[in-house]
């Protein structure tokens, strides 16, 4: 046991300089330094989905690794080309299945830019509200499962308790707990119901307290600190070269957040901070995400305070379904409804790249319109897919146990990686 702790201490100081002698003492003739290639996954609880890792091990130390992906590729991008614009929305939600609102926003935002449709202020605030709830939801799933990887089983129950309250809110407003199809081209499908505001406000007030409780459980937990501090460090220049965005980049001290950099939705009118780390180890990644949950709760509360009155969806009948009540009285509405539901709307040729800040970084949606009622190409720049490239840099020359912790802190969602 004592010897193991010494080894750990060496690993923290300079992971790259570990030699076999440090690990096993001086070499005997019968000991071997042979590299062993081990396959981990694709079905493994520690890989957070169906990720396969081919790892070259020297004893317990990872010397090289290669992520092998594609096990849940479902051809969503191809299927989107066969659907009219509004039917694509439920498809793209199912890519990154813990941050579904973000895919909807990336896609709907791209289509709105293509057709030049301005969404009403209330819809902007409602979208922002649900995006931030979804960000908390995504970070809760991450915190619960990653703490579980490090042995903190109770964290999973606490995180999923709060996650359930968010899902209750989603169900109340949209009818679905996951994959809500709430955002439409032009706004959101329904206004929030009576009683939602109260419930949501109570949640937004309580969430920072809950985050404080998580921190009390983890921040002074010796096992958690030893397993995360100084592990998986990659400097920010390298991260930028690798295209890494989101909390991983911010943990390395780069205050880059698309919510602040580009004006979209209601973010320019809201007051929130961008948490950044210092050295970019696993501990910083944890701190940044936990701080983001508190900031997101603030945004939720502000959205409720500032929620403007007015329509929740644009009034352009060429793109937006008419209200149900009009169908029995207005022939014109009936025709619009029929056209939209059967053929969908047509979009003038053009191409648009719309990027938003998802819980994992830059989520971009590239849509090509060819003049028909179906998109000619829908491509998602998924943050997990790009971030996964940095995993080798993070995990090489650390222990295999730290590699698992680092993978958790990387927070890839394989549904988004494989699409």
């Amino acid at each position, binding site marked *: 046991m004592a010897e193991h702790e010494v080894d750990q201490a060496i690993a923290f100081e300079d992971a790259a300089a570990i030699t076999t002698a440090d690990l096993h003492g001086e070499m005997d003739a019968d000991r071997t330094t042979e590299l062993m290639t081990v396959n981990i996954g694709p079905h493994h609880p520690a890989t957070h989905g169906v990720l396969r890792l081919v790892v070259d091990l020297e004893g317990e130390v990872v010397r090289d690794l290669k992520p092998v*992906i*594609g096990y849940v*590729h479902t*051809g969503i*991008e*191809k*299927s989107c*080309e*066969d659907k009219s614009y509004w039917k694509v929305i439920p498809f793209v939600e199912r890519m990154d299945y813990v941050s579904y609102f973000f895919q909807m926003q990336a896609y709907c935002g791209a289509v709105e*830019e*293509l057709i*030049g449709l301005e969404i009403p202020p209330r819809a902007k605030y409602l979208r922002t509200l649900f995006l931030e709830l979804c960000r908390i939801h995504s970070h809760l799933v991450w915190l619960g499962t990653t703490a579980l990887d490090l042995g903190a089983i109770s964290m999973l129950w606490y995180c999923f308790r709060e996650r359930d309250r968010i899902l209750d809110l989603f169900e109340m407003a949209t009818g679905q707990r996951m994959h809500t199809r709430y955002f439409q081209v032009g706004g959101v499908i329904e206004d929030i119901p009576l009683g939602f505001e109260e419930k949501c406000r109570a949640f937004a007030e309580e969430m920072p307290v809950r985050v404080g409780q998580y921190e009390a459980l983890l921040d002074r937990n010796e096992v958690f600190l030893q397993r995360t501090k100084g592990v998986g460090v990659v400097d920010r220049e390298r991260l*930028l*070269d*690798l*295209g*890494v965005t989101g909390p991983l980049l911010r943990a390395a001290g780069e205050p*880059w957040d698309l919510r602040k*950099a*580009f004006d979209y939705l209601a973010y320019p009118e809201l007051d929130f901070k961008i948490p950044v780390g210092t050295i970019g180890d696993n501990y910083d990644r944890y701190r940044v995400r936990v701080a983001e949950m508190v900031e997101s709760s603030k945004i939720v509360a502000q959205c409720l305070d500032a929620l403007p009155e007015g329509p929740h969806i644009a009034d352009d009948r060429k793109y937006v379904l008419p209200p149900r009540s009009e169908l029995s009285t207005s022939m014109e509405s009936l025709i619009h409804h029929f056209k939209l539901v059967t053929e969908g709307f047509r979009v003038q040729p*053009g*191409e*648009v*790249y719309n*990027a938003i800040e998802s819980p994992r970084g*830059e989520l*971009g949606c*590239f849509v*090509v319109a060819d003049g028909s009622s179906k998109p*000619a*190409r829908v*491509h998602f*720049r998924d943050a997990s*897919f*790009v971030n*996964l*490239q940095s995993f080798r840099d993070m995990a090489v020359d650390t222990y295999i146990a730290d590699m698992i912790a680092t993978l958790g802190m990387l927070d890839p969602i394989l549904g988004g990686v*494989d*699409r």
Partner: protein
Amino acid sequence: MPDAPGLELIRGEIERDHPGAITATSFDRGQAALLVDPERLLAVLSWLRDTPGQGYRFLSSLHAADYLPNEPRFGVHYELLNRDRVERIRVKAMLADPGEGAQPQIDSCVELFPTANFQEREVFDFFGIVFRGHPELTRILLPEDYVGWPQRRDFPVGGEPVTFTYNERNYG
């Protein structure tokens, strides 16, 4: 985004250093795009990345689209981001279909932007576009033994047959 005159300024400056590298510009729906000669792609990308005062050092996304029935058929898009000026620019290279059996080719930009590694493999996987000089150009999301380039517009949307007891004779 650079505005429309800003885009023309960038084009003019590139023209001075690399005459003929930019074949057209487009400014559509607030998004600026440079259409480049595929053979001169790397020159333009490294100019945008390294020229003082430009600094498009971050490659947000790399993707392709099939513009069938238009010619040239394939487009490879590089979404560059200047984080200092908070501006995006799209560099677009159009590739013709070289015909039966041959695959369109373009230079790999992994040396300039290491993030392009997975994304170029993805484009290769789905469109069959070969990136010359890529360190490991293999299929990434589809199985290694998959035949065909499914994101091309002439590839049909359809399911793969699932074997059940009643139809196993047909599919084995």
